[in-house]
């Protein structure tokens, strides 16, 4: 393949893959059963030039491959408020990846699709929140694949056999004791805040969290992981007694002594919560669904907003597949009657959708709170989904209960 006999695109992909594998000290490449591509989001000419190079060389993916969010909402194109020439380039980039044989899923939460990977599957995923979810919650095995490398893996069906692809690389080196009153485990806001701290504490290390229980549902672990992969380079965590490779603390660490043990207290969490929502001022908008809302989260939002009306623009990010399912279940009509704007295929923090705002934008997402100030230049208020709805109805930021 390296010599190009399997096609010029696969040859280039293999050349880049081997060079990266060498940089990572990988002893070999392994076969993968799927890929998720982050490179379809437009960041400028370079990503586009690379995709065109692959297409012109006849590149076709070798394994089932899903696509991450892009810059455009193809179902609601009027939402885009950016420059027209960027929209054209972004659309051509999306088309290039579809031309390579990728599925036009356009979601940052491919783990919410019916065909998600299973325990032990070797995959190559991009998108930091998807990577951490696949490893931690599904028990599938992927490194953090950057743009370009993700499609190189998909074009070759191979990935470097290193790190989180190996048994050894998945063991927790760091034990984090979550020392909070048990009633806090019912508070959805705990999870993104804990994730924000996890990223700061763990950096790139695999940690095991102790002190959570069955209340750490998939959606809460999604919020936790997304925040951890934003404030740090976390690609995997365990939750003792909850996640699939951590039936016990001992299983998570492989029976070895951890290199570090850290305790997180309510005081730590309170400080982190404040640091995520420094915004002060009138409420300009609300944005939820980063990562893309699940069917269950849309159901919960529908329940919260029924019979109410938002006074500010209220954006709900989700995928086209989840939207269709939630529509079948009757969750979308109440959300639309509430006055919310459904955003699919993209997300409000990566592309110009929210109008120029005076005041703060409220979110329930640790990831959105982390990136939006830099990306959009907005101030953020941070609260749970209930507080977001209450604020939208009141037209001013309603803080949830203190911890």
């Amino acid at each position, binding site marked *: 393949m390296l010599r190009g006999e399997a096609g010029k695109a696969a040859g280039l992909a293999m050349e880049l893959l081997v060079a990266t594998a060498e940089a990572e000290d990988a002893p070999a490449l392994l076969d993968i059963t799927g890929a998720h591509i982050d490179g379809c989001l437009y960041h400028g000419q370079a990503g586009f030039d690379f995709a065109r190079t692959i297409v012109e060389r006849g590149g076709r993916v070798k394994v089932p491959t899903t696509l991450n969010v892009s810059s455009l909402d193809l179902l609601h194109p009027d939402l885009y408020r950016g420059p027209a020439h960027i929209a054209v380039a972004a659309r051509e980039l999306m088309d290039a990846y579809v031309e390579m044989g990728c599925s036009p899923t356009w979601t940052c939460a491919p783990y919410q699709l019916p065909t998600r990977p299973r325990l032990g599957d070797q995959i190559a995923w991009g998108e930091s929140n998807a*990577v951490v979810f696949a490893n931690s919650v599904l028990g599938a095995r992927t490194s953090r694949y*950057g743009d370009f490398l993700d499609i190189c893996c998909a074009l070759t069906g191979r990935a470097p056999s290193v790190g989180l692809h190996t048994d050894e690389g998945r063991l927790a080196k760091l034990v984090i004791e979550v020392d909070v009153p048990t009633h806090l485990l019912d508070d959805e806001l705990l999870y993104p805040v804990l994730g924000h701290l996890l990223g700061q504490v763990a950096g790139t290390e695999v940690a095991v969290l102790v002190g959570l229980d069955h209340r750490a549902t998939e959606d809460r672990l999604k919020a936790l992981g997304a925040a951890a992969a934003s404030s740090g380079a976390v690609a995997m965590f365990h939750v003792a007694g909850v996640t699939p490779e951590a039936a016990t603390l001992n299983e998570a660490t492989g029976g070895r002594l951890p290199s570090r043990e850290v305790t997180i207290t309510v005081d730590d969490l309170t400080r982190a919560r404040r640091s995520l929502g420094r915004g002060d001022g009138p409420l300009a908008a609300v944005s939820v669904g980063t990562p893309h809302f699940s069917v269950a989260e849309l159901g919960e939002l529908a329940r919260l907003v029924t019979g109410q009306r938002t006074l500010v623009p209220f954006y709900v990010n989700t995928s086209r597949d989840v939207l269709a399912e939630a529509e079948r279940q009757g969750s979308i009509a109440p959300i639309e009657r509430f006055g919310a704007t459904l955003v699919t295929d993209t997300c409000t923090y990566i592309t110009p959708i929210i109008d120029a705002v005076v005041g703060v934008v409220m979110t329930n997402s640790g990831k959105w709170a982390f990136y939006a100030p830099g990306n959009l230049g907005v101030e953020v208020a941070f609260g749970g989904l209930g507080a977001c709805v209450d604020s939208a109805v009141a037209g001013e930021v309603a803080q949830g209960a203190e911890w």
Partner: protein
Amino acid sequence: MVNPERYRVLVGGVARGELLRLGEPLSLWGGLDPATGLIVDRNHSRVGTSVLGRIVVMPHGRGSSSSSSVLAEALRLGTAPAGFILSEPDAILVIGSLVANRLYSTSCPILCGPEPGGWAGTWEIDHNQLAQVPA
């Protein structure tokens, strides 16, 4: 000063520039504006600093897997660092440098190893070495 360390070469090449010690990791996506080369991550202690032409010294990458696209775009636009010294390997930066080299013949060597003992003046990456250039 003499820096006796021999570094692991993640991406080969030669580069010259002042060192920029970030102290903490930076996600280039959401953290670096490729149009200007300025650090825009408001959570980062070096926000507002330019990486253009500097040899960036940091523990490892952070955050988004889109950082490889941002590095490639910054290399295309000429706003990128001259090179990187990382404490840990980072495949996301490596692939960004390699792809920009294939597309635009740019050079951005990335070495892995300890931070150098001194900071002042101009430094040079040459294969597996990082040395201060005599004034």
